[in-house]
């Protein structure tokens, strides 16, 4: 199975999905709680503005803060994507080679003679989304592996590799095909 090799160029869609995931989708339950809180806060704030209900000044301020949280996060996501679109043109032209080995993960970027490597223990956590594998070294430093650059067999091998090397630090955040079905295809 080893080494598992990914060779790809990053696209805007990859970055968009990674940024959206990093901003909104760490934990499903947490996101639902945040969304419910936001709906409640915003509704309370609007009802208070319309004088349907009466809140104290402190609660009104809290409701206002809750109401602006989601739009601020969304604007932050859009800003990051826009920044990458403008400043990331050179980065998107580069070919990235990432190798998942038995002992470590190695990286190389075209146009750069240097290579990099991380031990598996240095990976804080990893996620699988619909189109990507995301390997986080820290909460704002991730390596992305696009599924489009590889085969269904290699995606399954990557999943097994990450489960083996990271254990509970690897989470699947997308629908995956049942293994038997994937093998028969």
């Amino acid at each position, binding site marked *: 199975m080893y*080494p*598992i*090799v990914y*060779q790809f160029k990053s696209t805007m869609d990859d970055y968009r999905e990674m940024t959206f995931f990093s901003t909104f989708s760490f934990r499903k339950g947490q996101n639902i709680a945040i969304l419910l809180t936001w709906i409640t806060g915003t509704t309370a704030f609007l009802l208070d503005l319309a004088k349907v209900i009466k809140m104290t000044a402190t609660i009104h301020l809290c409701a206002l803060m809750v109401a602006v949280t989601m739009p601020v996060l969304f604007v932050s996501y859009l800003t990051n994507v826009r920044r990458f679109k403008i400043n990331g043109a050179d980065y998107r032209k580069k*070919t990235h*080679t990432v*190798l998942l*080995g038995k002992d470590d993960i*190695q*990286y*190389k970027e*075209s*146009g750069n*003679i240097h*290579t990099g*490597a991380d031990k598996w223990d240095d990976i804080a956590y990893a996620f699988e989304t619909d189109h990507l594998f995301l390997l986080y070294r820290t909460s704002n430093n991730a390596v992305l592996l696009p599924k489009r650059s590889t085969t269904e067999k290699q995606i399954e091998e990557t999943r097994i590799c990450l489960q083996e090397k990271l254990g509970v630090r690897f989470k699947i955040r997308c629908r995956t095909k049942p293994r038997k079905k994937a093998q028969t295809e």
Partner: protein
Amino acid sequence: MYSRKTVIANATGLHARPASDFIAAAGEFESKIKIRRVGGDPEEDVGNAKSIINVLALGLAQGEEVELSAEGPDEKQAVDRLVALIDSKFGE
């Protein structure tokens, strides 16, 4: 310094498994060994033949010509062995 050119003959090119065999063979020698894509960028299309990430990053496909060069006490044996390995199509 000793060098030789050859053409990647196996269908999948120098991908994961053949590259693993290649660097394992290169690692048996003391000499410094380089692999270069003939006609490629002199800075970008060259790599350490003992580093799997360097070999894989070249993305060598079937039909591409490469030059292997080595410098050290066993340079001739190293290059000849690696050329023979490429020519054998890595057992494919």
